[in-house]
Structure formats: C-alpha cells, structure tokens
C-alpha cells in the first residue's frame, strides 16, 4: 500500500541571459513538471519562442511529411550521436527532400500518362474489328461519315434501299457502325440510324490502323507501369537507407522544439524569467544541482510551500511510487483514472486481488500453461512499451490460475482427480489422485479436495460471496484511511458506518439462525446505529444506497458463474472430441482426425475466451465493487519537461 510520490513545488528565477542554459539543464534532467504560466495582472508576460524555433519546426514538418510519404515506422533503435545528426541534418535533409520530390513528381507524371493511355485505349476498343485507318474517317468534301454505336441490329438492306452510294463497316458484336454516304443522302440515312438509337463515337485523332494503335498503346502502358514500379522500388530503398536518419533527426528536432517553445509556458519580464513547477521531493536536490552547475550558480532555485487549495483542487501532478513487480498494475489504474495526490495508490492491492479473482474464475492448469507460455513469448518477441506491462499482468494472472488449477484439479476441462459420482467411481486424468471429502458444504453438498466446482455450485457461490465480502471490506478500510486525513469523525461516519451495518447484520443473523433471540436484538441495534451514523455522514443518500451493499456482494457470485461457463465449454469440446475418437478408435480414420481438429479449435476458442471473460469480470469487480468503496481518482499525470531518447544520445 503506497501513496503517490511526494512532490515539492519549486521556482527557478534568473536573468534572461541564462534562460537557455537553464532550459537545457532542466530538459536533460527530465524531472521537472512545468506549471504553465497564465498571464494575470502581475505584469509578467509569456515570452517569445527562441530564435531557432521557426526553423526547427519547419524542418520537423518536412521530416514528418517525408517519413509519412516513405511510411517510416518505429523500430528497433540504432542509437546515434545527436551532435552528428544535427551536423549533417541540413545537407542530408536537403538532398533527401530534392530526390523525394523528384521521384514523387515522376511517379505522378507516369500515373497521369497511364490514365491518358487508358482513355485512349477506351476510345480505340469499339473500332478494333473495323480495320480501317483513322485518317480515312475525315477530310471529305462530298462524303458524310457516321461513326458510332447503335442498339438493335443493322441490316445492310436498310441503307441500300436509300442509296447505292455507300460504304458500310459494321461490327455486329461491338455494335459499331462506320458508314460513308454521299452528303445529299446523309439526312435520310441519319433518320434510319436514329431509329436504331445511333450515338456518335469519338474518332481518335491520330491516324493508324486500330489494332496497330492498340498494340502501341498497350506497349506504352506497360512501359509506364514498369517505370512506376521501378520508381517505387527506389523509394523503398530510400526508406531503408534513410529510416535511421529520419527517426533520429525527428527525435533531435522534437527535443529542440520543446526547448525552443518553453518560453511560451513561463513568466517573463523584460530581463528576468520565472519557471514554476513540481519536482519529486527525492529529486529536488538533483534539480538544484543541475541548474546551478549549468548556470554557475546564477539562477535562484527555491521550494515554496504547497497551499491547501492546490491539494484540494488536484493541481499537484501525480507520479506513481511502486516497486518494479507492481508497476504493471499502474496500467489498470490509469485505465480507470490516476489516483489523486492525497489518495492511497491501490496498485499494490490490485497486484494481489486482480490475479486472485482472475485465477479463482479460470482455475485450470492447462489454460494457465498455454496462456502463460503465450504471454512469455509475446513479452520476449514484441518489444513494445505498451504490450509489456499487459503481458506481465497476464503472467501474474496465469500463476494464480495455475495455483487455483491445482486446488480445482482441472486440466483443459478434464478433472484430474477421480471422484465418487452417482454411478460409482469416475476416474480422473491422474490415476493416483483421489478426491478427499473434507467437510459438509452448503445445501447437502460436500466440500472436497480438489474442489469439483461443477458438483458444489451452491457451496462455491457461498465461497465467492465470502471472498467478495472480504474484498469489499478491504475497500471500506482503505476508504477509512483515505478519509481519516479529514478527521476521524468523517471516516467513521462515511466508511466505518458501513462496516458497523455489516457487523449488525452478521450478529443478527447469528442470533436468528442460532436461536439466541437476545443476540438478534443486539444485532438489530448495531444495524440501526450503523444506519444512523451513515445518515449523519452521507445524508439521506446513505440509507438509499443500502441495498447496493447486497447487490455488490451478490455480484461476486460471478466468480463461480463465469468459471462454470468456461468449464462447460471445455468439457463439451472434450466430450465431442472423445466420442468421435471412441466411435472407431480401432483405426486412425477420418473421425479421429476430425476429433483432433474439434479439440484444437474448441480449446483455441476457449483459450481466447479465457483471457476476455475472467479478465473483464475480474476488472469489473475491482473497478465497480472495490473502487466504489474508496477510490476517487482524477489525478493529473506527472509529465516532466524532457524527453526519453530512443534513437540518439548526447
């Protein structure tokens, strides 16, 4: 159980001549969370960015657009010296920019050509089977040329009945008509054609035989596509050649940009600057020393007292303070909301309760091994900062699942231990493991080891709810500790009252079922006292929320419910697969192969479900039932001025 890192509010004051040195020192230390200055009546103003800001951001935009064009992705970093990157930046960037724009222009030109050629080809196609040079289509004084397409079919007789002076080319497949007639007959011929819904086609302007032209066009098209391909290959080679440079220079320039724009976030007068911010108390001395070293003691650094108002309003940035194994749980907290500065950081409790409930739900040795191996493999091969904590959480969960797998004696839905059923002894997977009856459970069931969940549902509901009660009360205790900052009275009225109510119910129930009526009255008395305290603490809202206590408690029944659904899916898959094999187990036939496929697919599906269902339900129990009792959240993230370098170093 820990609290967020203690913060110290610090102020750095100095002459503007040392601003740059101070900024560099602060940036390198990566420990100082800068509080943005908001202009007020004090006479201080925000300043202008450093001189190089415009140039830096211009280059940054250029680099990012090039990276975008080339499709550069973040990858395994190769570390370069930031000085040498800066040194060759201008020359390399200029060269790269020129050749990129050259290449992209050429590509777009080729693509335009390709489009033109495509259009030309479209114009050519209708004339393909009319093997007539396009030069013959025009330039007549006394002839009218009809070139177009028709619907329906054209009989030569329709034309010859009008005139004998004609020349007809007709492609009945493409419905293309090219008709030469004397000008004086043109009107009448047009009428005939009109009836056939004649439409003019564009005659290509170039001369030549259609089939010959088509061949040439296709040749050109192929050339253009080849050229585009080769240009793209060149771009691709540039990508691999320049990826390191682009990533490194992006990083160097981002750092420069952060530094150059800092004056926009701080208070300055004509000659002086003030930087206000937060630093983890343990690092305060480091920050003082770095700044003093960089400015040879000319900057004035001091800590100032944190005002009550700042604590209340959540101005203080929150940085987790957890040990390494617990750190992955911070992701679950961040998903909900970062704790406030004054709150308990429940990461270390989640570290236990989240995997515990996950394991209680899943509880299967087989799935624990499969999922654990998967998580380990992903953690080893995927080097992503986002995936790693997730896989760590999954591994914690699988350890817990494995332990509960032993308690439940389950392996991929098979019971490991033999047990006495209605029809005699049912053998388990492990011949030497026999079920031992420990003590009677609820509603006539027997509590056994290993715990056969399917045979003691009511008992397991009871166990689940008992676990829930412990979990909820842990929440009340944490809430009590959180509130005791505001005084013990608050804490007792708002959180303690709930526990008194629970105690009252417990005592009353004991009295009622134990047949001691005196105890029942005592219990009811405690219960009433709790309700009165609650009303004093939370007003009328308190008693109204009383039934939610029962809802929250019963909600833990999902631990067994979701677990049972997982068992039933697994054992159904096993049943189907084994019945198929048993049908003709004398030989390896089709059924046996199909059975193996069913087995693998079924358990594959259940493995995926085994991450989602227990994970989500365990998460929900933490978020809704547990956090609802004590957690507020809404803390501001501690975001120090600095940069975590990946591709460069000083």
């Amino acid at each position, binding site marked *: 159980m820990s609290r967020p890192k203690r913060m110290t509010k610090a102020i750095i004051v100095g002459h503007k001549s040392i601003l740059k040195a101070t900024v560099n020192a602060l940036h390198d230390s990566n420990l100082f969370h800068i509080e943005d200055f908001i202009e007020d009546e004090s006479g201080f103003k925000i300043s202008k960015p450093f001189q190089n800001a415009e140039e830096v951001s211009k280059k940054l935009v250029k680099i990012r657009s090039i990276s975008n064009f080339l499709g550069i992705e973040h990858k395994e970093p190769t570390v370069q010296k930031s000085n040498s990157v800066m040194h060759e930046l201008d020359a390399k960037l200029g060269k790269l920019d020129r050749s990129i724009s050259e290449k992209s222009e050429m590509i777009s030109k080729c693509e335009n050509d390709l489009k033109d050629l495509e259009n030309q080809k479209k114009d050519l196609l209708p004339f393909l089977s009319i093997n007539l040079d396009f030069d013959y289509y025009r330039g007549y004084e006394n002839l009218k040329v009809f070139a177009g397409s028709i619907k329906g079919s054209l009989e030569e007789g329709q034309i010859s009945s009008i005139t004998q002076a004609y020349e007809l080319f007709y492609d009945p497949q493409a419905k293309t008509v090219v008709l030469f007639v004397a000008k004086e007959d043109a009107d009448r011929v047009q009428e005939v054609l009109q009836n056939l819904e004649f439409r003019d086609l564009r005659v290509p302007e170039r001369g030549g035989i259609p089939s010959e032209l088509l061949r040439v066009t296709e040749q050109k098209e192929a050339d253009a596509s080849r050229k585009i391909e080769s240009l793209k290959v060149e771009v691709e080679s540039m990508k691999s050649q320049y990826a390191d440079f682009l990533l490194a220079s992006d990083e160097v320039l981002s750092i420069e940009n952060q530094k150059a724009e800092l004056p926009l976030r701080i208070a300055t007068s004509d000659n002086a600057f003030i930087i206000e911010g937060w630093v983890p108390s343990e690092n305060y001395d480091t920050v003082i020393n770095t700044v003093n070293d960089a400015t040879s003691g000319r900057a004035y650094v001091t800590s100032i007292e944190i005002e009550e108002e700042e604590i209340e309003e959540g101005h203080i940035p929150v940085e987790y303070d957890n040990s390494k194994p617990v750190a992955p749980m911070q992701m679950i907290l961040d998903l909900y909301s970062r704790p406030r500065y004054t709150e308990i950081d429940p990461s270390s409790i989640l570290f236990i309760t989240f995997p515990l409930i996950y394991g209680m739900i899943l509880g299967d040795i087989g799935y624990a091994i499969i999922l654990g191996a998967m998580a380990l493999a992903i953690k080893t091969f995927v080097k992503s900062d986002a995936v790693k904590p997730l896989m760590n959480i999954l591994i914690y969960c699988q350890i817990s699942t494995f332990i509960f797998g032993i308690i439940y004696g389950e392996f991929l839905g098979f019971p490991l231990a033999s047990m006495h059923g209605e029809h005699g002894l049912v053998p388990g997977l492990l011949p030497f493991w026999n079920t031992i009856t420990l003590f009677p459970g609820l509603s006539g069931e027997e509590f056994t080891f290993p715990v056969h969940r399917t045979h003691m549902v009511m008992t397991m*509901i009871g166990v689940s709810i008992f676990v829930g009660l412990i979990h909820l009360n842990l929440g009340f205790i944490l809430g009590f500790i959180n509130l005791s900052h505001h005084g013990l009275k608050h804490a007792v009225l708002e959180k303690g009252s709930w526990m008194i109510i629970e105690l009252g119910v417990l005592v009353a129930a004991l009295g009622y079922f134990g047949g001691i009526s005196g105890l029942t009255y005592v219990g009811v008395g405690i219960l009433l006292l709790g309700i009165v305290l609650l009303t004093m603490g939370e007003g009328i809202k308190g008693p109204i929320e009383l039934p939610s206590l029962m809802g929250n408690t019963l909600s833990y029944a999902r631990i067994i419910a979701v677990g049972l659904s997982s068992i039933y899916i697994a054992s159904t898959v096993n049943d189907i697969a084994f019945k198929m094999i048993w049908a003709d187990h004398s030989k390896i036939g089709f059924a046996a192969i199909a059975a193996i496929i069913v087995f693998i697919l079924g358990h594959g599906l259940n493995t995926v479900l085994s991450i989602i269902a227990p994970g989500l339900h365990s998460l929900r129990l933490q978020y809704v039932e547990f956090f609802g009792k004590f957690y507020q959240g809404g803390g501001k993230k501690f975001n120090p001025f600095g940069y975590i370098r990946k591709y460069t170093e000083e």
Partner: protein
Amino acid sequence: MVEPTVAAAAAPLLDAAGLKALGAAIAIAGTGIASGWAEKDIGSAAIGAMAENEALFGKGLILTVIPETIVIFGLVVALLISS
C-alpha cells in the same frame, strides 16, 4: 436424465422437475435480456464518449457493465431453483 418409459408417456405434460427447469430457464433468459437491454444504451453512449476522449475507456467500461449484476441475480435465482 429420465429414461423414457411407457409410464412417462401417460404422465402429465409438465412434472415438478420440468417446471423447475423451466423456471430456471425463465430466470436466466429474462435477466439476460434485461441486462442486454440496459447495457446496449450505455455501451453505445460509452463508445461515443470514447470517440471524443479515449481516456474515458475505464469509466465507460464500468458504466457499461453495471447492469450485468441483473443477470448474475438471475443466475443465482436459477441455481437456487434447480438445486
């Protein structure tokens, strides 16, 4: 499992065990539909909120799964009926 016998054919359509099973089924089905019904509106609103601000995932998830308790109640009731 009841072995089908000649006597079973003459038995009433619904015996006590059958009615119990039906009751359990209704408890699960009704609460399941109710949970889904309640969650659908919350879920779509949560997705909408997440599109605006991805940090709301946690809160969205919590609000979406709150009505899930309904079906858990149904399950408890079903188990009580059938045991």
